[in-house]
């Protein structure tokens, strides 16, 4: 049962990534594009963690943690850039 | 003591966070956690001029439990709007919520709560920190949404922080 649920979750997040790619290609505004990239980062984190469950190792969790941090910082940096034209004030 | 630990709560949070990240209670991770918990509040002291006053830690816990429950309810609502509601029927609205909270920490907590809970998202603060601009995904009655935020979250935060 667990393996079916795991496959279902991985398929869901993979489909979510495909939907995000479509959105990224057709996004009408710049904030939309940043939002899509942010969502893609979150979905990739989920995929990494689920892969870790499948292989029963917690090695990949470090990568997911780093991705969570850099993804957040890059979202904020992109927004800052749009708001002020520079990142460091 | 006050010079060594300007922010005891921040130090405790850093200690706990590092131990959880390291995932072990071995001597070197405890030492590293203690060093970080001492140094980071000292080095960043200039950015935290005053301490937040939490009067009722127990109420804080019950507030967090309430928010967690509301996050689950919020997501079911948003999922139903996304899946079943035709795009033309979604009535989005900008709402101004006047707030009266004693410190920036409480305001940040309220803004975060609003973003995570039913169909609302904090979009902007006023320059004097006395109002929040909120975007509601589906709010047929904006006044009711505003009153719910004030009675459900703001009044609790006021009781916690003063």
């Amino acid at each position: 049962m667990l393996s079916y649920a795991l496959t279902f979750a991985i398929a869901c997040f993979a489909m979510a990534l495909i939907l995000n790619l479509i959105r990224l290609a057709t996004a009408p505004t710049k904030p939309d594009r940043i939002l899509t990239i942010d969502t893609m980062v979150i979905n990739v984190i989920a995929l990494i963690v689920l892969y870790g469950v499948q292989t029963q190792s917690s090695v990949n969790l470090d990568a997911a943690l780093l991705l969570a941090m850099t993804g957040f910082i890059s979202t904020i940096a992109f927004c800052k850039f749009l708001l002020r034209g520079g990142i460091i004030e | 003591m006050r010079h060594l630990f300007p922010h005891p709560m921040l130090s405790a949070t850093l200690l706990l966070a590092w131990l959880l990240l390291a995932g072990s209670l071995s001597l070197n991770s405890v030492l590293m956690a203690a060093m970080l918990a001492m140094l980071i509040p000292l080095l960043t002291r200039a950015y935290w001029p005053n301490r937040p006053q939490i009067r009722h830690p127990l109420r804080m816990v019950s507030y967090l439990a309430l928010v967690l429950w509301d996050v689950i309810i919020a997501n079911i609502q948003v999922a139903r709007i996304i899946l079943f509601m035709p795009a033309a029927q979604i009535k989005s609205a900008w709402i101004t919520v006047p707030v009266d909270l004693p410190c920036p920490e409480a305001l940040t907590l309220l803004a975060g709560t609003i973003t995570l809970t039913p169909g609302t998202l904090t979009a902007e603060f006023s320059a004097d920190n006395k109002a929040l601009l909120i975007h509601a995904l589906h709010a047929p009655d904006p006044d009711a949404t505003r009153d719910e935020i004030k009675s459900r979250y703001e009044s609790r935060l006021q009781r916690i922080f003063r």
Partner: protein
Amino acid sequence: MSLGIEILISALLVIGGSFGLIGSLGLLKLPEPMQRLHAPTKATTVGVGASLIAAALTLAWQTGEASWQSVMIAVFLFLTSPLSGLMLAKAHRHLSRPAVPPTGTEAPWAGDTPPKA
């Protein structure tokens, strides 16, 4: 093995996957930019949060060691998603200037004040 834990983990995984998919679907489907902000900040966060808790439970159950890192990732995502949402809303307001209600106090919205040189 104990059936209860397996059912709990499976339910969490199914819920997490569904919410992750719904969030991305909302991002694609909702018509206005501000409405699109709602879907990922809520649905995706809870989707990933449920998956992370499921992962923590599975790893703790199968390897016998508690994996606190996935709990930390979940906490981190919950703390940062309101901030991302706020910054994206600010960027959106800055670029497309939608009509918004007044503050009701003397001061204007923080994004409408000129930056301090």
